[in-house]
């Protein structure tokens, strides 16, 4: 699956080929949202799970 196909991908308005991919992480101490800039056409790695929000 490509980033651009994910509902957790948010393209940049000035360059839709780039965007932010949001992940929800719950570690042993805290829960947080993490974001990293990605290319829309790149494949989502297996360890970056989809999530439906809170």
């Amino acid at each position, binding site marked *: 699956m490509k980033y651009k196909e994910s509902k957790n991908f948010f393209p940049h308005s000035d360059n839709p080929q780039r965007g*932010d991919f949001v992940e929800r992480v719950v570690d042993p101490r805290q829960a*947080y949202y993490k*974001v990293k800039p990605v290319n829309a056409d790149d494949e989502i790695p297996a360890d970056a799970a989809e999530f439906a929000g809170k």
Partner: protein
Amino acid sequence: MAAQPAKDTSTQELEQKQEWWWIAEKKRSKRLDYLRKAVWKKGALGGNYAPGIKVDLEIPQLFTNMWNFWRYDPPMLRRAKSMAHVLENMPIFITDHAQLVGYMGTLPHTLAWRVDGATMVNEELYNEPGVMPEPEQASLKRVADLNAYWAGNTAVDKLARVLDPEDAVKFLSGAIGWGAPTSAYGYSGKDYEFMFAQRHGFEDILDLIDQSIEKAEDLTMGNPGPEILPVYDRIQNWDAMKIMLNAAIAYARRYARLARILAEHYETDPKRKEELLRLAQTCENVPAKAPSTFQESLQYDHFVQILARLEAHEGAWPARPDYYHWPMYEKDVIKEKNITREEALDLVGEFMIRAYEVGGFGPRWAREGLQGITGTWVWTLGGVNKDGSDACNDLTLAFLQAARLVRVANPTFGFRWHPKVRDEVMREVFECIRHGLGYPSIRNDPLLIQNAMHWHGHPLEEARTWVHQACMSPCPTTKHGVQPMRMASATANCAKMVEYALHNGYDHVVQMQMGPKTGDARKFKTFDELFAAWTTQMKWLINTLVRTVNLGRYKDPEFYGRPFLSAISERAVESGLDVVSPVGDRGNCWVTGFTWVENADSLAAVKKLVFDEKRYTMDDLLNALENNWNGYEQMRRDFVNDAPKWGNDDDFVDGIMVRCLQEVAKHSREIKCPSGNSWPLLPENVSGNIHYSSIVGALPNGRRLGDALYDGGISPGPGLDKKGPSAVLKSCGKIDHVGDGRAFLLNQRLSPSQLAGEKGYQLWKAYIRTWADLGLDHVQFNMVSDETLRAAQKDPEKYQEVIVRVAGYSAHFVDISRKTQDNIIQRTVQGI
């Protein structure tokens, strides 16, 4: 998870048992409780990182890729472009319930790694157990590749090639000092006057830089001449600063965007949604613009600190939050009532938590010397305004109150006491100490202002802005007064002075001729011969360290370069020079004196038992020391019990202490920093007394190799101050706290039961008056009972939150090594 008390345990019961950490849990808001417990503690447990803490490899990789790409640029520009790439591409996160954001790693449990600082540290990281992210093999390969790229090309490598090789070898032996002579690691003062008092957001600074460039271009496009030649480099530096400021604004706006995405697409709770939108607005506004709300003020400050830590491994956190955030606090909480005091307290508590979670990978000596923490975040509270009036305000109280709610070991506070401090404030200070935090330390403000003017020529108004540059040293926050980079490698393991005087400069631990050959001590006939040897070793040791730091500071713009730090410093913005360059710096250097008091106690013991009373010969003594006192137990006891010890108001040993300090002070004026100012001594220890315990050989005070050294500064040896707290203060009062050195750390343990209630407060307040009257500049307290500390040793799980003052910083008791724990318990509990 720590065992909790029964739910119905009353606050009163907990107070009686002095289990203040449970009281904090009961009293703090749900948000603060969540955020406090969410922290991944980065301080090492003894010398090891806690399970689950991993090194961040993303940022070093992003940085290295771009550093290689921009290899034809000058250092500052190259760093700025590389850092801009990091800020644009590093993953960022927002913790649930957070209202303040920014971290120096990509995930909450990660340690930042300064990959271009020192090959030694990089290699140490490769070998370090437990810190590689999974999958470990892939991480090891990545680190090996990064290390291969940087080997020989880090800031320390570059400096080591320029240093005199003898100095380099001796400094890097680890026997005489620590720290690294580069701004890649160090304590950077921030020009708070420029950013906060003068209200410059980054866009304002960009305008100032553009004006400077315009003026510079008038020169470079005008008549040729030698005076315009340095201007070309300065324009490149200004370009670098601009890149960093723009990248920083964009970085903050990445948080704004994330907060807005979360509010609009994920968050269902309307209250949290509102908070996220406010956070988004905050990160839109700062650091681009000067802050206009209290939250923005704190967030601006935190971004500045994080950005500086993304640029370098900063080991301290000079700050004065109640002073510089007061205008926005006053506006929002007091004048306009935009937020309630409780809401403000939540922000203050979180502001402390955000600092507490910060951590970078440090070499083992740093971890052992700062057990339980990752740097000395000593924030300054109280003090006076530039006009000399009392600067304490309601935000001072809020910080003291929030500290008791969040109970973090880092940051801690140093409180600038002066005679005009209101009783209400003193009570809050005392409450923190009574709650066992070990902070604030108490600093004598009038005296330290005088000291700053005496040693470094700071004008009065400038001196009055001082903050703790690290644990102890006062340093202003102004254009010329700020010290942008204190390199910690002028930190002397002072016990080596007397050790080398006795061993002809030879170090039996590191197996090297270190100091000058001052003669076979077996042949010394008088105490003055020994003292002369001591003076020579003292000068050699300090000179070696200071030469190293001076060169490090001078060469730093070439070997490292700090575009962000420069961009937030008025001096650099105006001049176009890297702010670490000594040009325009008033100069505010000091030699940190670890393991200092051993000199006085050792010299006094030799004087009394060998030269005055002739109970032993120098031969006897040297034989005993060379055998680490093994086989000489009775003699060792004589040297412990029959020789006078510092801290008992005994003129014999106190006179030697003062004589030693005066010798150093005299030498301090003979040696100069790159700005031409003096290098006064500042005795203090952090947990260096434990780190050096196996590096300092046997000493005439009866100490064996491996025994903990004294806890430092001018604190008497643990358990050796037998004549009560007044005697300690009187001994310390014999030192001229202005002319004999830069500052003098004093640890004292007080009895929690004696200081309970109103009577306890009044006793403590009277003690502080005596302390001030005797002219001491510092004192800090542990007020946790032996009973609690011993219980914590037996059952650490139950006492996870017990905090103690180590020396110059606080730590959770369970995070320090057994030897350090014992050393703290051994300190005399003074009844006052």
